[in-house]
């Protein structure tokens, strides 16, 4: 089956710059998957997705959407892809309801269907109270939801979502992940997702690419990538106040709160250390777990633990 996106050796050097924003990126996004793109600020994620949305021309390399190179037919990508930018006020002279209606209508729905789509999206994303308010006059969170609603209006077969949960409270973040999951499962929408929210995104991401300094350092299924980290365990320790903790040799140790440490340790050493602290009772609390997507992110993007091979 033809890949939704085939990115081949794509490099972008912005005018006046010498360091590439992204460098020799190659990846394929398969039909019906949710592909996560993770990396620090400035890693080149937004540049890559802007290239995939045909808003930015690569300096070198090619991008194909359903086998067709971008840029040949001007309306091809906008007809197939809904793109949610990281920032952007979009139609800030319109109300939320007007924005949704016009977007749905301009994406090919009849006037009647566009009105129905507007009502569906207002309901789906809890935007009913903002329906008749101008976009600049709603809260940052509502604006983010309105932008997501605009992006998914008229159900494009491919969605590129750049930080869809920014500015959202925990309840709405969870709801957005549910919506993303449902779009993928119920409609088969292919979704490319850029996010910093690694822990929450783990619920929906089926395949993931990690970017570091403009390069794609690993691509694969989270489970497969994490398998190489499962030789290691993560151990969270909470010491009583005023204790000066003596930590064992670790792959990585970080103080994540006052007296609260996160250690990444080799499996055998971690198990032995847990047995020891249970006997000595120097630790107030501990939690032992296998690696998460966040650990993988830290390992790959910050080189804090052994890096799995690029799939």
């Amino acid at each position: 089956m033809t890949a939704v996106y085939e990115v081949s050796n794509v490099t972008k050097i912005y005018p006046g710059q010498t360091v590439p924003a992204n460098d020799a990126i190659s990846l394929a996004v398969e039909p019906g998957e949710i592909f996560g793109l993770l990396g620090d600020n400035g890693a080149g994620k937004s540049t890559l997705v802007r290239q995939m949305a045909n808003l930015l021309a690569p300096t070198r390399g090619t991008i194909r959407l359903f086998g067709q190179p971008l840029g040949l037919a001007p309306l091809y990508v906008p007809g197939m892809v809904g793109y949610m930018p990281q920032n952007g006020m979009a139609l800030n002279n319109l109300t939320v309801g007007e924005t949704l209606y016009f977007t749905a209508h301009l994406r090919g729905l009849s006037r009647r269907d566009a009105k129905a789509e507007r009502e569906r999206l207002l309901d789906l994303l809890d935007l009913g109270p903002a329906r008749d308010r101008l976009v600049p006059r709603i809260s940052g969170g509502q604006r983010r939801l309105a932008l997501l609603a605009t992006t998914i209006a008229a159900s494009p077969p491919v969605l590129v979502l750049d930080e869809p949960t920014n500015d959202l409270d925990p309840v709405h973040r969870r709801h957005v992940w549910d919506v993303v999951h449902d779009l993928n499962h119920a409609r088969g929408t292919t979704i490319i997702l850029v996010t910093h929210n690694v822990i929450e995104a783990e619920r929906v991401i089926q395949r993931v690419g990690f970017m570091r300094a403009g390069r794609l350092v690993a691509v694969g299924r989270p489970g497969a990538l994490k398998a190489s980290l499962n030789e290691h365990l993560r151990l969270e320790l909470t010491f009583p106040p005023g204790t000066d903790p003596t930590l064992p040799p670790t792959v990585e140790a970080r103080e994540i709160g006052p007296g609260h440490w996160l250690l990444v340790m080799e499996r055998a050493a971690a198990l032995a250390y847990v047995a020891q602290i249970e006997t000595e009772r120097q630790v107030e609390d501990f939690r032992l777990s296998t690696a998460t997507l966040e650990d993988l992110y830290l390992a790959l993007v910050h080189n804090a633990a052994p890096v799995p091979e690029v799939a």
Partner: protein
Amino acid sequence: MFLTSGYKERTQPFWVQLGDLILIQLANWRWSWRGALLTGLVAPLLSTAALGLFARDSGEVALAYILTGNMVMSLLFGTFDRVAAHFAYMRAVGRLDFFATLPIYRSALIVATVIAFLALALPSLILTLAFGTLILDLPLAISPWLLVVVPLIGTSLCGLGALIGLSMETPENVGNVSSLITFVLVGLGPVIIPLDRLPPIIGTISYLSPATYAASALRQTVLGLSDRIPLGVDLLVLALLLIVSLWAVGRKLDWRQG
């Protein structure tokens, strides 16, 4: 194959796109009406009143220049200035990106913007004409050609404004440059002041200014005055400006950035 051809089904015909985009751009009245009132109506009327006071004894021709010159100023502020600012703003806040991600023709967006901003400028123009006529006590001789002249002036100035708006780096730069150009266009030609009261060199330079042709066309179609430039030439120059500016805007508005 179904998916790759599906994008055509998700593209509305040009005229449907144009209708939606005109409505979207007309919604700019929500933020622009105060500025439109101030620069498109109050400023030309104050100028009409002040200059009319000084030129009261200078004859009907001088008063005619004041009326039609201020109508040109109203159109410049309402179309050229505002469209320049609007295109720069659209680019700065990512609205051009938003349009670029919709299956719409660039030409539909350009034409819709020009039509919408012309429509937004018309109330100020009509009020400037009505109140200006009352203030200056001038007899009108409206020609049916005015229905061609006003849209042609407005759309060609919109095209020029869009070009300036897309050529500048920041919206702040656009505001300064477009205001400067507006005053230069009005000042460097027989727009508000008759040619015989301007230095001879201005008469020659004025042929380069679209405001010269706009003012000439308005004098002929609003007040029935004859002019050194025939109406046909005014219309031809303004039509050429419209075509060239829209073509250049179409080239400039390549929303796939390099």
